[in-house]
């Protein structure tokens, strides 16, 4: 059986049909304030151990997609009005954020959102809030995070509000890792950071994926960077998946090159047919 470009959209016995799918969204619809339709049937599959990129312009619904998964919509008056979300075969779209973190899904929100009046060390510890496996395990994970991000170790006693933007992004990722996640929903990690810093953060993401087997769903405007680490990508436009494919396919697609990678070509006249294909 050949695997088509589209992910295997399961009907009945999902766990058997797609054993490798860690997370699956089936035509998820999200409405804000009961009237504003933001997601209009988004289907995404993230296999275990993968890095999947979610690309698209500002306002396309990338953040909303991630928040639909982590169930952070409610506090912003958003609601999932259609579709289903499954994690390891279990339906999760009705679970509270805390229950999701306990099951291994955690979101690193856009803008880093470190706690400015807590020290770097305390910020990391807040990530272990849901854990029940004892202090020793938490301590060894702390050292692991400091090992990945030595800059944080040097600043562990400093208030998080006073460290640099790149360090805050590392702290936000490290804080999420403290929950021992199977999957991290990483929202716009490149935002407002210098290119070298972005490169370092992305290489750290790749390392975490390879060495610790953490699965990532990565929402990014910086498509170039994202497709550099991701194996597969989805392009979201106006709340719908406009296109999907492996990183190589997307990289080769003229519409993607034109609109998302900033690589203008004479051959870009086919932009629209490609862009609306999905």
């Amino acid at each position, binding site marked *: 059986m050949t695997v088509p470009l589209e992910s295997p959209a399961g009907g009945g016995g999902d766990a058997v049909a797609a054993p490798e799918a860690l997370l699956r969204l089936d035509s998820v619809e999200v409405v804000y304030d009961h009237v504003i339709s933001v997601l209009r049937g988004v289907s995404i599959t993230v296999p275990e151990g993968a890095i999947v990129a979610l690309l698209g312009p500002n306002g396309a619904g990338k953040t909303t997609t991630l928040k639909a998964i*982590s169930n*952070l919509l409610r*506090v*912003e*008056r958003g609601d999932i009005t259609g579709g289903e979300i499954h994690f390891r075969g279990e339906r999760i779209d009705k679970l*509270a*954020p*805390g*229950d*999701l*973190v*306990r099951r291994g899904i*955690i*979101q*690193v*929100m856009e803008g880093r*959102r*470190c*706690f*400015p*009046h*807590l020290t770097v060390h*305390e910020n990391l*510890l*807040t*990530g272990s*809030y*849901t854990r029940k496996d004892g202090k020793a395990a938490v301590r060894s994970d702390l050292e692991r995070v400091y090992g990945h991000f030595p800059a944080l170790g040097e600043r562990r006693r400093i*208030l998080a*509000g*006073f460290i*640099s*933007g790149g360090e805050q992004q590392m702290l936000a990722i490290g*804080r*999420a890792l403290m*929950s021992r996640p199977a999957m991290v929903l990483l929202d716009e990690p490149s935002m407002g950071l210098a290119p070298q810093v972005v490169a370092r953060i992305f290489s750290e993401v790749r390392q975490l994926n390879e060495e610790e087997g953490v699965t990532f769903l990565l929402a990014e405007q910086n498509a170039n960077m994202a497709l550099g680490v991701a194996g597969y990508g989805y392009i979201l436009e106006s709340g719908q998946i406009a296109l999907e494919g492996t990183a190589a396919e997307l990289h080769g697609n003229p519409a993607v090159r034109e609109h998302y990678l900033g690589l203008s070509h004479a051959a870009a006249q086919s932009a629209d047919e490609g862009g609306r294909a999905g």
Partner: protein
Amino acid sequence: MEFLWDFFVAPFLDMIDFPIFLAEVAVSGLLTGVMYSLVALGFVLIFKASQVFNFAQGAMVLFAALTLVGLIEHGLPIWGALPVTAIVMVGLAFAIERGMLRPLINQPPITLFMATIGLSFLLEGAGEWAWGSNVKALDLGIPNSPVDVGGMLLNEFDLIAALVAAVLVAALALLFQHTPMGRALRAVADDPQAALSLGISLRTIWIIVWSVAGIVAIVAGIMWGAKSGVQFSLSLIALKALPVLILGGLTSVPGAIVGGLIIGLGEKIAEVYWGPVIGGAIENWFAYMLAMLVLMFRPQGLFGEKIIERV
């Protein structure tokens, strides 16, 4: 000329001439200030963790004191009545989370503020309905008599009250700074949504802070109640806490404590030394005038949390 002399010079000469009396006045002012701090502390805890300005804090003090006195009147010893009152206040925190905070989630702050005004009426009514509206005496068995401390005559009750307040504040500081729960509370105070994304339950945190504020209200209610009787006017000491909050900043626990001390100290000294010059009753308005001056020159309060912003 004589007035200027009386106002600007004579009080200071008095202070220099009788330093022990000045010390007595200052210490008794600080001791009253401790009790203002306690009420203000309840406001700060709730505001930090849930961005709700809890107008009902005064009513909670009254409700706690009424419950305690009512239980004692029904024959419970004070050491039995205290834990029962604490359980009632924790139950109240659960009820407030379920009946007020949860339905009003995502509403603008002014809506929640209005809800707490409603809550204050509810609590005042419920307290008086359950325990009656007559003035009740709360006798703790602590003599309201002066004791000699290093040459100063101080009120024994005030000293004990200050000690209890100090222990309470130390316990709270320990809870906030050194426990996982305290860390979660501070995280929610900084960024509720980020805390939620880490699996910290906002509902649990709200129940905890409202419970802690309820416990603080019991302590404040006991002190004020023992001093001036348990009666409706207890709920008005919330108004006295407002200048403390303006002085100390709404988000600062140390600010609430120092703000209360400054106001207690200031109004006592003003009353004793300047009261005779301008006809007394300075204690009634001193706090508000001080608050107004602070608002003009330092609107975030003396200790209001600095907003950390990197540019």
